[in-house]
Structures are given as structure tokens and as C-alpha cells.
């Protein structure tokens, strides 16, 4: 029997394998990795620096151990060049591989915007453990870092490096931190606590030039101002990796289009994780991946299962001012309401029928995440009398 082939060794690929092996020890599985195939926690890339962890310390389970534990074949340093959907066969740098079913868990690429200047190519991004290793090396002996992007990853890196003693500048064209996830009164809570540990914020502008300076680089911003940095990091977002699926003729919109069963437009091909658009939504976060992996494992084991996503709050790892958020769709009907404030803020998004459909908890309120998650879908008044003052 041809194996199930999984393309990608990140959280999505390995989680499907872990879950599948809980249900079926025997079905042959082959996992393909572009890199070493070692298992590591990607969320830790943006908070490992201050803990003094190098790339090797982030590897939780080396590939040999994963192979043994899961009873799967792992091919490393392999690139998939094409999918022949008619013959159920992959063209790869290690020859042709036939599959019974195919799982695409290829992740996403950092979005890069073109810039002027003789050092525009020096701008880095950190999307995997190898990038992190290179970054740590480049940071030796430096002390100034500029981060393009004040979203989740930008804020986490800013907090991490500021804690490690670096002078951090964050540049973002938006009006305040985490603007795509939460309203202004919540996002703005991060400004003073991160400034206090050494983060220099620049909102409402972007980097237009990066040029070499006597030491490090000179960044010229769109508003004409300049700043100096030894390292420039771009953290402005991710774009699902869809080229392979697209070339194979699979339906692709923003990500690889799949239904609630994680099934693409080809019934033998599935997708999950940062490369997938599940029923119209790309959700590049940990919890959606875990839920999707569990459902897909069942389907692969023979019990066709649709993924059901519960309320999945996103945790922003900014220890200087912790944040948990259950974001709402941009066009959601309703509005944000402040429930409490102090050293941080607690806000809920009330939908058209006054039910909680999103929330933000920052600072002292971040610890109420699980309690707040339980209140999602309930009317505000019924869900907690304590909030009525």
C-alpha cells in the first residue's frame, strides 16, 4: 500500500502524525521535511532569546526520536517540486514518491515589502529555527534592533530583546500595537510597559530605505525621520505557501482551500496549518492547528470527521504586559465594550444580540483567559454579575 505522505515537519505536520498514531499504529506514513525534520516549538522563536536559549536548545525532539516514537518514515532536506494528482505522485529532489493520501502542511512565508537603499537585502525575518540560529549569530556584539511590524510577532520579539538588554525600535504604519487583533484602547496598553523596558515605538510610518552606516544601518522612514540599527527584522505578516497546490490545479484563494474535513478540491489531498484556508479562514495560530490535526487524523484513520473550532484565544507572549485575545472578524456586527481597567484592560466584543463573541484581556486581566473563554456565546449580563457596576 502506498503511504500517506505529509509535506511539512512543523507543528501541523507532526501534530497530524501524533494524533493519527493514537488511532492507528500501522498505516504507513512518510513525512517530508525541507530542513532537518527536528521537532521544535515555533512559538518559542519569539521568546527564547531573553531565556538565553540557542537554536539547539529549542529542539524538543530530534528527528530520529520522532521517527521512532511515531513509527513513520521521515525524509529530510527534500523539496517537493510538483504534485501529479492524476497519478497520485510527487516529483521531489529525491525522486518520485507515490501517495495514497497527501497532507499539505507547508506553512507560510514571511511577507516582504520592497525597499530602497543599499542594505535593503540585509533585512531579515525569522520564520524557522534556522533563521533564529542566524539571527542569534548576527546579534553577537550588537545592541540596536529595528523591527518592522508591531503585530503579534513584532511585539513578542520587541519584548524578548528589550528584556535581553537591546535597544529596540518598532516601526508600523498602523496606529497602535496589535491593531489587526484588537481595538485601540487594548492595543495601546502595550505602549508604556514596553517603552519602560526599552522599546522605542514609531507608529503611522514605515521604513522606506535601509542603507549601510559606519556601524550597522541607517533606516529612513516614510515621514522623513531616520534611525540607526545593527539588525533590521521584518515581522509584518505571513503568506500561506500555495505555489505547489496552485501548480497542481488545486483550488487556492488566500490559502489552499479546504472544507471542514480539511479536504482540498482533490479528494485525496488535505491541507492544514498556516498554508490552509479552512472554510474561508486562514488561522496561523497554535490552537486551530491542534484542532484541525485531531479532526484530520480521524479522517485519515477512516472516520470522516469535520473540524469544529471552539473559541480559541490567542496569547501574545509579551511578559512586560501579557495579552490574551479572542479576535473577531473585521466585518463582525457589534461593538467593543470595556468591562474593567486598571493595570491593563478587559474588553468584550458584543454581537448584534449582545452576546460575547470576542474579548481582549491585557495586563492584570490576562490571567482570566480561561474564565472569559467559557463566557463566549453568552449574554454579557448572564455570564457574570461581577461586571455589572
Amino acid at each position: 500500500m502506498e503511504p500517506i505522505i505529509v509535506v511539512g515537519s512543523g507543528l501541523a505536520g507532526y501534530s497530524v502524525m501524533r494524533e493519527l498514531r493514537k488511532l492507528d499504529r500501522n498505516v504507513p506514513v512518510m513525512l517530508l521535511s525541507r530542513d532537518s525534520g527536528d521537532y521544535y516549538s515555533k512559538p518559542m522563536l519569539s521568546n527564547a532569546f531573553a531565556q538565553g536559549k540557542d537554536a539547539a536548545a529549542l529542539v524538543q525532539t530530534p528527528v530520529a526520536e520522532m521517527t521512532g516514537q511515531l513509527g513513520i518514515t521521515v525524509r529530510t532536506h527534500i523539496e517537493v517540486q510538483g504534485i501529479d494528482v492524476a497519478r497520485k505522485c510527487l516529483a521531489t529532489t529525491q525522486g518520485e514518491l507515490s501517495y495514497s493520501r497527501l497532507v499539505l502542511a507547508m506553512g507560510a512565508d514571511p511577507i516582504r515589502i520592497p525597499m530602497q537603499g543599499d542594505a535593503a537585502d540585509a533585512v531579515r525575518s525569522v520564520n524557522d529555527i534556522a533563521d533564529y540560529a542566524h539571527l542569534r549569530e548576527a546579534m553577537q556584539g550588537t545592541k540596536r534592533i529595528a523591527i518592522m511590524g508591531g503585530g503579534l510577532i513584532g511585539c513578542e520579539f520587541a519584548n524578548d530583546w528589550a528584556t535581553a538588554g537591546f535597544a529596540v525600535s518598532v516601526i508600523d504604519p498602523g496606529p497602535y500595537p496589535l491593531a489587526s487583533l484588537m481595538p485601540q484602547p487594548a492595543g495601546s496598553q502595550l505602549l508604556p510597559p514596553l517603552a519602560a523596558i526599552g522599546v522605542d515605538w514609531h507608529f503611522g510610518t514605515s521604513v522606506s530605505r535601509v542603507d549601510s552606516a559606519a556601524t550597522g544601518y541607517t533606516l529612513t522612514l516614510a515621514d522623513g525621520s531616520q534611525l540607526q540599527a545593527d539588525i533590521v527584522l521584518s515581522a509584518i505578516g505571513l503568506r500561506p505557501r500555495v505555489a505547489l497546490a496552485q501548480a497542481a490545479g488545486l483550488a487556492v484563494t488566500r490559502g489552499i482551500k479546504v472544507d471542514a474535513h480539511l479536504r482540498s478540491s482533490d479528494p485525496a489531498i488535505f491541507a492544514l496549518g498556516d498554508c490552509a484556508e479552512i472554510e474561508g479562514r486562514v488561522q496561523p495560530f497554535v490552537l486551530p492547528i491542534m484542532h484541525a490535526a485531531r479532526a484530520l487524523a480521524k479522517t485519515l484513520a477512516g472516520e470522516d470527521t469535520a473540524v469544529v473550532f471552539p473559541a480559541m484565544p490567542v496569547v501574545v507572549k509579551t511578559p512586560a504586559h501579557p495579552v490574551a485575545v479572542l479576535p473577531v472578524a473585521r466585518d463582525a456586527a457589534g461593538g467593543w465594550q470595556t468591562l474593567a481597567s486598571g493595570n491593563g484592560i478587559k474588553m468584550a466584543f458584543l454581537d448584534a444580540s449582545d452576546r460575547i463573541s470576542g474579548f481582549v484581556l491585557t495586563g492584570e486581566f490576562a490571567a482570566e483567559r480561561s474564565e472569559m473563554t467559557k463566557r463566549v456565546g453568552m449574554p454579557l449580563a448572564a455570564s457574570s454579575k461581577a461586571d455589572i457596576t
Partner: protein
Amino acid sequence: MKVWQCVVCGFIYDEKVGLPEEGIKPGTAWADIPENWACPDCGVAKADFEMIEV
């Protein structure tokens, strides 16, 4: 007493130490933690923890 680690974020639960800030007393066995408990750092389920040797 055993130690469990979140496979996603590396969070450690040590049965000896418990999680007093979440109301889980020192010495609480993994089996006695409710099934709907979630990782305090990344929110994944109890099932996403593995026992580790220490």
C-alpha cells in the same frame, strides 16, 4: 512524581510542584487534573502534553 511537558510551547507541569496559582496543589498527579484543563502558556489541551524523563 512525574513531569509533563506541553508539546507545543514547552511549558512544564511538575506533579511535585503543582500549579498553586491555578488552584492545583503541589503533589497533584497528572491523572487528577481535569480533562478540560489547558496549558497556561499556549492554551492547548491536556492531551497535548507528554511525559518527560527528568
